[in-house]
């Protein structure tokens, strides 16, 4: 019988044919935790009476949220994670100096493959769907169970396919496509579902762009955000892999999104679905611009921002923070002269961290302050004080905004070739 990609992947990991709506126990190929969710998972792992992780090659521990340690308590949590990694001889533990934001790091390190089942105690684990993996965010108890047993319970999700038709404005990128989709279907439009992204506009995207889109599947409530595996995926992975695809006559819903001429977008406070064209928000002045995160902290993002900032200075009174998503991204940006562009423009560049995206450290907002961020959430108090505001956008809008001090459509400061 015909099946969706989600049904096929979960079936192959459950050892039985499963359908949307059923509950299954499936084996997992990778289990991920960070310095916030890991310590709690470790505590619960011990409470479960577990002594050894099911496979030290399949557990990935990344201190990235509050590292480099933001205070003594954060340091204690990072220490707990480090000690557990040593005790369990975890292969994939990434210390400061070789780490990155987990969802930038894992694909980069070749740990993610099409058809895998990956669980992570971080909601943006859905990022790996860009490479065709069934990857989903879970809690710490879930991760403790998965570390102990190598399997976990799942509800097999229904599939909602988003088909992007038309050619967006050349100034719009992957972030604008996903913001548009969330604006259209809403923050719970894909609740409990598997999203599939397809259509000419997304097939043209690089793997980095696809990672940006899959990353925000959770912002529409989805369990996973899947892309088909194609030549770009194989080139990125350096492997001749095949993806798991939905049968044409499987049971799923399709929604067509017309993105012809789509302009650069911004999600205004306080929901990622509160999406407007950037040019409609010119009246909004900002105190800070943040370029980074698991959504937009990859080389392509930094390049997009640098191409706009090159040879200019950021607007007076605007703090511009650039956070490369991993050591490898940082190094590549440095070698290409991108870091120099940022520094000469008057931006601050930091070591990789989730940091300010969740109001942790390295760029937290004061009361009443406004930030234009390339991150994924603009909830109340997300980046700091409850009265601060976060506007979400892609790296081009962020760079243009850095130059003017108010929310700016990049076409206002640079010209784009038509087509």
């Amino acid at each position: 019988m015909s099946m969706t990609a989600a049904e096929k992947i979960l079936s192959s990991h459950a050892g039985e044919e499963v359908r949307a709506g059923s509950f299954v126990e499936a084996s997992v190929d990778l289990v991920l935790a960070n310095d916030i969710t890991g310590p709690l998972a470790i505590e619960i792992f011990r409470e479960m009476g577990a002594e050894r992780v099911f496979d030290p090659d399949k557990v990935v521990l990344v201190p990235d949220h509050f590292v480099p340690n933001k205070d003594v308590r954060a340091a204690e949590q990072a220490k707990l994670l480090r000690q557990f990694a040593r005790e369990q001889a975890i292969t994939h533990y990434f210390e400061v100096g070789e780490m990155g934001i987990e969802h930038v790091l894992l694909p980069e390190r070749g740990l993610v493959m099409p058809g895998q089942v990956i669980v992570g105690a971080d909601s943006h684990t859905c990022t790996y769907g860009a490479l065709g993996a069934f990857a989903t965010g879970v809690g710490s108890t879930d991760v403790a169970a998965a570390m102990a047993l190598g399997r976990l319970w799942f509800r097999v999700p229904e599939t909602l396919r988003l088909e992007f038709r038309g050619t967006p404005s050349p100034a719009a990128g992957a972030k604008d496509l996903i913001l548009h989709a969330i604006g259209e279907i809403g923050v719970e439009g894909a609740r409990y579902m598997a999203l599939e992204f397809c259509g000419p506009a997304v097939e043209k995207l690089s793997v980095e762009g696809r990672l940006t889109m899959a990353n925000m599947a959770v912002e529409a409530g989805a369990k996973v955000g899947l892309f088909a595996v194609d030549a770009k995926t194989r080139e990125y992975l350096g492997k001749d892999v095949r993806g798991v695809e939905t049968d044409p006559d499987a049971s799923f819903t399709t929604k067509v999104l017309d993105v012809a001429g789509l302009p650069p977008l911004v999600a205004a406070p306080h929901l990622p679905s509160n999406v407007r064209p950037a040019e409609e928000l010119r009246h909004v002045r900002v105190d800070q611009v943040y370029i980074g995160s698991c959504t937009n902290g990859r080389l392509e993002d930094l390049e997009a921002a640098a191409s706009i900032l090159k040879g200019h200075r950021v607007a007076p009174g605007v703090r511009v923070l650039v956070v490369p998503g991993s050591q490898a991204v940082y190094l590549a940006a440095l070698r290409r002269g991108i870091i120099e562009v940022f520094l000469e423009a008057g931006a601050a560049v930091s070591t990789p961290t989730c940091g300010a995206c969740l109001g942790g450290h390295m760029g937290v907002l004061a009361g009443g302050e406004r930030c234009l961020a390339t991150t994924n959430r603009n909830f109340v108090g997300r980046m700091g004080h409850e009265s601060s505001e976060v506007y979400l956008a892609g790296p081009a809008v962020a760079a243009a905004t850095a130059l003017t001090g108010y929310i700016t459509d990049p076409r206002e400061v640079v010209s784009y070739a038509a087509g």
Partner: protein
Amino acid sequence: MLRGRAWKFGDNVDTDIIIPARYLTSTDPAELGAYCMTPADPEFPHRVRKGDFVVAGQNFGCGSSREHAPLALRGAGVAAVIAVSFARIFFRNAINIGLPIMECPQADAIRTGDELEVDPAAGLIRNLTRGEEYRATPLPPFLREIIEAGGLVPYVRREVRR
């Protein structure tokens, strides 16, 4: 049967409201509970009484995977969460740690201060203040088994020993 007062919140209550990330350097429910829901209502941790209910609209618990969110609610003394719908990771986390949650289409009818009598196992909510009765969407048998086992921890403990 649980009995307590309702604390009503709106749609899309996210995990940054339930417990802001800056407090995630602790895993202690009592400590987390002291900051629970404060971005929405700074007085909530002081005014909520043990056994009260959090009631909300759609998509409760959207956002982060932090299990600290249901732990904070429990630490604040919340006996159960009743909402029109739940975001999926919060839903998992609540089931896994054994915090009763009830998906109820009529949750919108409940107001802050309403006196409620709640039977999570039967999926029954009685609004004593308004003289109304609501039914929660029944949980699938698979999840009821996890809850009846006392959450995911006892379940895994059994498997680990095997």
